[in-house]
């Protein structure tokens, strides 16, 4: 097995996903008729990380840090500008998702699924829940007729929805129930990797806890690997094994969760953690992050 060379982070087992030097650059065009490229926005700039099977890696950062773009490049929802995304298939083969032609990519997509942030916009309002959850199986031609019905009912039951719910439309469900539908849609493909893009950000704390619990249960049961994109550090702390902190398209720090929170190494991680309002009134948050970030940007980069 020719595993990708070099290790990033503490992964010692064969990684399920191995990202190397991932870049996504967007050209900035000048205005007018004869527009030409005047600048390049490096949304993702030389990002590398490994993801072990059954591991949860948190990708945190502020909006614009490139965490969602990274996640989308990993799933090839958008084409990366450079870099490699090695993904291990269930049969043990390693493929580079970044360069695979579209035709070969489609059958591989069933192994890597996504759960989206907004349970309102990610579900088609004109489709019933049963059709939404069963659609991936239909697209990949993996089940039809009675088998399709059975598998949809199974997966709905697994995420805590009732069989009769499959005849209803998304508008009849609360945000939390919709998020279960989104999870069921990803789960029905029996994937090995699920990318959760801010999967709990739109939910209340009490429901957020339930979604995280469900995701943890499913992870144990189906040996799922999560790439968990989030901006809420509190959620990441409780849910992820390792955390990658992104800023301006780059990973500034990647370490086990306990280490990131107990002893952050990078100045940016320290500022980010200090800005989180603690629910303990005796632990004062840092209101001064604006100036500290400006100072960080002014300092010469190593």
């Amino acid at each position, binding site marked *: 097995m020719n595993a990708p060379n070099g290790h990033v982070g503490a992964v010692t087992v064969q990684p399920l996903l191995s990202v190397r030097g991932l870049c996504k650059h967007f050209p900035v065009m000048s205005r007018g008729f004869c527009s030409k490229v005047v600048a390049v926005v490096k949304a993702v700039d030389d990002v590398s990380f490994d993801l072990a099977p059954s591991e949860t890696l948190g990708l945190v950062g502020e909006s614009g840090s490139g965490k969602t773009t990274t996640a989308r490049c990993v799933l090839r929802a958008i084409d990366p500008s450079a870099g490699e995304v090695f993904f291990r298939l269930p049969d043990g083969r390693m493929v580079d998702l970044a360069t695979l032609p579209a035709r070969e990519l489609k059958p591989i997509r069933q192994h890597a699924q996504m759960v989206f942030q907004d349970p309102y916009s990610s579900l088609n309002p004109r489709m019933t829940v049963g059709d939404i959850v069963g659609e991936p199986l239909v697209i990949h031609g993996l089940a039809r007729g009675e088998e399709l019905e059975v598998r949809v009912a199974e997966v709905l039951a697994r995420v805590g929805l009732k069989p009769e719910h499959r005849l209803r439309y998304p508008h009849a469900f609360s*945000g939390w129930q919709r998020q279960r539908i989104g999870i069921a849609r990803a789960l029905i493909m029996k994937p090995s990797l699920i990318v959760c893009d801010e999967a709990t950000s739109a939910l209340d*704390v*009490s429901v957020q806890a339930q979604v995280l619990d469900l995701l943890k249960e499913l992870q144990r049961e189906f040996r799922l690997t999560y790439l968990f994109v989030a901006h809420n550090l509190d959620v990441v702390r*409780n849910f992820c094994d390792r955390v990658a902190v992104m800023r301006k398209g780059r990973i500034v720090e990647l370490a086990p969760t306990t280490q990131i929170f107990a002893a952050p190494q990078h100045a940016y991680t320290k*500022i*980010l953690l200090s800005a989180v*309002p603690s629910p303990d009134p005796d632990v004062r948050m840092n209101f*001064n992050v604006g100036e500290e970030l400006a100072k960080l940007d002014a300092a010469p980069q190593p």
Partner: protein
Amino acid sequence: MSDADPGTDPAHLPLLEVENLEVSFFTPDGVVPAVQGVTFSIARGRTLALVGESGSGKSVTSYSILRLIQPPGRIVGGRMLLRSARAGDIDIAQLGEESEMLYKVRGGLVSMIFQEPMTALSPVHTVGSQIAEAILIHQKLNPTQARGLTIEMLKKVGIANAEQRYDHYPHELSGGMRQRVVIAMALVCKPELLIADEPTTALDVTIQAQILGLIKTLQRELGCSVLLITHDFGVVAQMADDVAVMYRGQIVERGDVRAVLKNPQHAYTRALLDALPSRRHAALQSARAAAELAPAEVKS
């Protein structure tokens, strides 16, 4: 009820007293009570946080104070006494829909910051003109003076190049900048009460920290009271003096922020606090520590 006990300094009376507020929505499927018998008060210069999950009635309560409840919703009972230093005692619940006083209250004596700054800003007017409009409505200033005051206010909320930014449209600004503009608009008329409805929910933590810091600084400067609507106990702990926890249209617990967060009395408050990821993390850690301790105890 008499307005004040003899011997009590009116300055020490609460700025706002809400008593038995009832708001219902009259839908074709029946009457939905959104706020039921809510009672609280906000002292001068202090911050009260109204915390609860979505649907708990916290936003309906705050909208009621500005009389922004739209049909089929209606305030069906209670009183909201605003003890304005500038305009005297006003029962907001009794004001006529078209009354002069209501216009004076809205944006003048009481102003509001919304969660999503884009909904509070007009996309077709420059940010400067929108702030100046508030000044021209509530203060006796001419347009040139209003422009000057607007630029001064934009500087105060931390917007660089305020003179140029005056002529920018909301879509040209980032989310954090827009929220700063909304804060400038809310505070330019020196309100006695600022209602902030999830002012930082849509923002990143580092921007949130800056906006919360800004609200604190300006509150101190203007001496206004703040009613902070939020679902985030972190924001409550860092910003508020007092807290009221809402559940299903009622306040289930109310008190000093330290007392409520450190020693919640109501089961719902406890459940809500226990659902916090940081609390769950702590619980998990102590469970792990206990599990690791157990075999060691056996050994010794």
